[in-house]
């Protein structure tokens, strides 16, 4: 009789979750093609590594370790849960207790159960009473359903753990009352407490508690499992798959459509994501896997500066859209254009593609690719802000966003410091090292200093270096990331041909955006280095050496700002710091946000032209962070960072107190011995 009842509950529970999961998977099968999954070993390791190294990152230790504790307990308990379910079919006897291994596992399970219970109660108190601000839902995203659900779910899990303790404890009490032997129960575990509390019960009363608690527990377990695919707890099922399928190449952008090569991409009916099913399955899986932990938005510079973008809600809105348009019952709802519906244009253009959100996400959700895909869709529909149309048109016509003449690109070499030489390869000359200048340092009056400083470093290190001159066009790193794939391809193909034609054996650039494009978006390039890597190499080889800072400079405190496309996207964190530290007399401090937590300056490339809605510039935030660190010189290694930070110093009213310069400028000033 009991076995039949248990069977009904188990069958109903399993059928329920299978049905819900099958319905949830439907949009994944209707979605665009996703990435091919290779490098299995690396991916499996990632499933272990990413969540556990990201959850307890600085500032999130409490949540992180609470989660790890919960997760480890649940993993330990997974076999125990199966045993408990099974016990209902065999007279409520937990199997395996006749062996020492069985008893050992039972004791470990008792500990895990206790730990799980405490962790869940703590989590409920934290979310329900302490209310960390990270989880708040801004008004514009509707009613805060997040917190009540969080409290309910962890409380529910705590209750299930408690029931399990009662189930196990009552069994022990019944055995004791019937004067039968029972396995060892570790004192101070939940099971031990449960047994103590119920110790006054007779054998039959304890037996009744045992049976009743079993059924409530069984229902509890299956209700909980069935709740998973309705909320953030879906990540317990889809999260590991998302991490397994994550994009492995940092800084790269997904192709317009997976499985379609450059030659046939132009023939596609439509570009980018316009409707929900234009997302690929991996991206819909991302939506499902969002644990609503808020780390992305907590680190998003766009969110911090009051732009209408919060990555967390990109995921949550995507998830809710999937839930409402692919309901558990009835026909699927017709897909309408996403931009103008759940996403706004400004929200999608607000992203600087800095990657802070992706760096933080414990389930490795990809945001940049989704933003780029949505932009591709808007570009394809002609829906582009006027502020971006001009630079895009100019890039198409003249290869730079200002529409300046090609022949003016190498103007900056006319005023090189004495003794510095760099060849203009457009005249047919050849050079071993190609300096890829890119548009910003070629045309912007202030950034030409940066180009000249780079040439000075190259020259001082004895490099046989040249530039493509008028034959260089914009690297198009940001053209691609703003969604104009065809224009990107045109510029990439032009540059690739020119680079190949130059015969250069290696490329150096002082622009991290160019570095990223050449390394991640271009094919068959010679080795590409950032100037900081080049300088460090030459320092170590002994072909470059530095003179000491002068007395005035020695009194200054320097800090290094990591450009997103050098740091996060290309993992070049140490070379610029080592180069700075090699200058005698250098006094360098770190900002609290540094390295992989660096805070975007405001964005480069086309972002310079976009006019966002924002409360305060990102650069101003950054300058204040430098001030808080006690620095008065911000050294960066990117022409866009330098522009944004120099502007931000003025906006923040810190002129005279704070200065910004590029690493190349710092190095060029101190070449000597």
């Amino acid at each position, binding site marked *: 009789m009991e076995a039949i009842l248990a069977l009904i509950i188990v069958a109903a529970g399993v059928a329920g979750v299978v049905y819900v999961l099958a319905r949830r998977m439907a949009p994944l099968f209707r979605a665009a093609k996703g990435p091919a999954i290779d490098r299995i070993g690396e991916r499996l390791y990632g499933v272990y590594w990413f969540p556990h190294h990201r959850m307890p990152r600085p500032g999130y230790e409490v949540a992180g370790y609470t989660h790890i504790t919960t997760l480890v307990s649940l993993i330990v308990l997974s076999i125990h849960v199966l045993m408990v379910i099974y016990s209902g079919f065999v007279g409520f006897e937990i199997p395996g207790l006749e062996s020492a291994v069985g008893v050992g596992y039972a004791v470990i399970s008792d500990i895990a159960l206790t730990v799980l219970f405490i962790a869940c109660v703590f989590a409920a108190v934290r979310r329900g009473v302490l209310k960390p601000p990270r989880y708040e839902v801004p008004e514009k995203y509707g009613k805060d359903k997040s917190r009540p659900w969080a409290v309910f779910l962890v409380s529910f899990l705590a209750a299930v753990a408690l029931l399990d303790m009662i189930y196990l404890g009552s069994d022990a009490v019944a055995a004791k009352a019937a004067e039968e032997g029972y396995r060892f129960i570790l004192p101070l575990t939940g099971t031990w407490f449960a047994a103590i509390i119920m110790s006054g019960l007779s054998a039959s009363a304890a037996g009744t508690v045992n049976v009743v608690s079993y059924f409530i527990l069984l229902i509890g377990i299956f209700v909980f499992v069935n709740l998973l695919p309705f909320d953030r707890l879906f990540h317990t099922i889809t999260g590991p798959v998302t991490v397994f399928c994550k994009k492995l190449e940092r800084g790269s952008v997904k192709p317009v459509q997976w499985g379609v090569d450059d030659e046939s991409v*132009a023939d596609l009916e439509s*570009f980018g994501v316009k409707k929900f099913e234009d997302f690929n399955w991996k991206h819909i899986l991302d939506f499902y896997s969002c644990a609503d932990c808020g780390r992305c938005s907590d680190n998003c510079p766009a969110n911090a500066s009051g732009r209408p973008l919060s990555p967390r809600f990109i995921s949550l809105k995507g998830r809710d859209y999937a839930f409402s348009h692919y309901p558990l019952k009835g026909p699927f709802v017709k897909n309408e254009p996403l931009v103008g519906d759940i996403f706004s244009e400004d929200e999608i253009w607000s992203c600087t593609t800095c990657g802070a959100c992706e760096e933080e996400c414990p389930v490795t959700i990809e945001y940049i690719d989704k933003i780029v895909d949505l932009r591709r869709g808007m*570009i*394809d*529909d*002609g*829906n*582009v802000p*006027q502020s*971006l*149309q*001009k630079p*895009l*048109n*100019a890039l*198409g*016509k*003249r290869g730079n966003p*200002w*529409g*300046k*003449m090609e*022949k*003016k690109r190498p103007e900056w070499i006319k005023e090189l410091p004495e003794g510095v030489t760099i060849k203009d390869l457009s005249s047919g000359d050849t050079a071993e090292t190609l300096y890829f200048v890119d548009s910003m340092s070629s045309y912007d009056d202030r950034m030409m200093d940066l180009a000249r400083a780079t040439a000075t470093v190259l020259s001082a290190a004895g490099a046989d270096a040249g530039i493509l001159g008028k034959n260089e066009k914009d690297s198009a790193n940001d053209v691609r990331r703003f969604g*104009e794939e*065809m*224009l990107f391809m*045109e510029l990439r193909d032009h540059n690739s041909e020119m680079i190949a034609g130059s015969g250069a054996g290696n490329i150096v650039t002082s622009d991290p955006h160019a570095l990223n494009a050449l390394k991640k978006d271009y094919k068959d390039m010679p080795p590409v280095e950032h100037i900081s890597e080049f300088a460090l190499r030459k320092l170590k080889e002994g072909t470059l050496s530095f003179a000491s800072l002068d007395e005035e400079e020695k009194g200054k405190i320097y800090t290094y700002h990591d450009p997103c496309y050098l740091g996060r996207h290309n993992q070049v964190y140490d070379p610029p710091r080592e180069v700075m530290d090699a200058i005698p007399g250098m006094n360098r401090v770190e900002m609290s946000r540094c390295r992989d937590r660096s805070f975007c300056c405001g964005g480069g490339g086309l972002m310079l032209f976009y006019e966002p809605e924002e409360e305060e510039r990102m650069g101003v935030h950054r300058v204040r962070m430098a001030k808080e660190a006690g620095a008065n010189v911000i050294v960066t290694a990117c022409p866009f960072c330098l522009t944004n930070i120099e502007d931000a110093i003025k906006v923040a009213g810190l002129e005279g107190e704070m200065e910004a310069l590029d690493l190349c400028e710092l190095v060029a000033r101190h070449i000597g011995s």
Partner: protein
Amino acid sequence: MEILVCVKRVPDTAENEIELNAEGNDIERDDLVYSVNEWDNYAVEEAIQMVDKHGGSVTVVTVGDEESEEVLRREMAMGAEKGILLSDDAFEGSDGKGVAAILKAAVEKGSYDLIMTGAQADEGYAQVGGMLAAMLDYPYASLVNSIEVGDGKLKVGREVEGGNIEMNEIELPCVLSIQTGINEPRYVGIRGIRKVASVEIPAMGASDLGIDAGSVGEDAAKVRRIDYFVPEMGEGAEMLEGSTDEIIDKLIELLKSKGGIK
């Protein structure tokens, strides 16, 4: 509604790196890149939006050489259905009146309810729209910055002195010259242009249009440019004096009087 929009290929002078040619009667054109006249682009966008709402089709027309086809294609990529290239050696060097005469002949070859032009083009005469209307004996509104479609007529807003707007009712068929800012023209990428790359664009010459070759072109032009120069730099600058508040007030006054702010 059948709408004809007249467009022009003009040098892209956004970066004002313009140099005079050796003869001193024109700008050096070798290093220039060309695009569609900005005002015309707003006119085409407006026409497309009107057709999207009220039905009909948009045709774009230009007077120029073979290279002008690229601007027609660009506007077709935006959503214009047809393009017509008016090209003939006899058209070269036409003045505004000549261009208007050529366009008039093209208008009469079709059946259009509405003709639109940009308010002006690169040379800043702002003359073709008005002349075309006069030649066609159509009503005309210039500097239009809003259009509402009514029955057999349009309600058009016009920008007037001091940033004021006046509203007019105008009967169809008519000619409108369009001011920038009337809408936000859509973006046209390489992909859009490629999609219309193989669409046939008919070219019409003087004989196709029934124009006497002698009535247009350089010889018939009654306006000729005889010189082109960069004016001498004015002397000095006006220094505003007084307290910060006074300076700000004076500056606002100056900007207002020069039309810089409203």
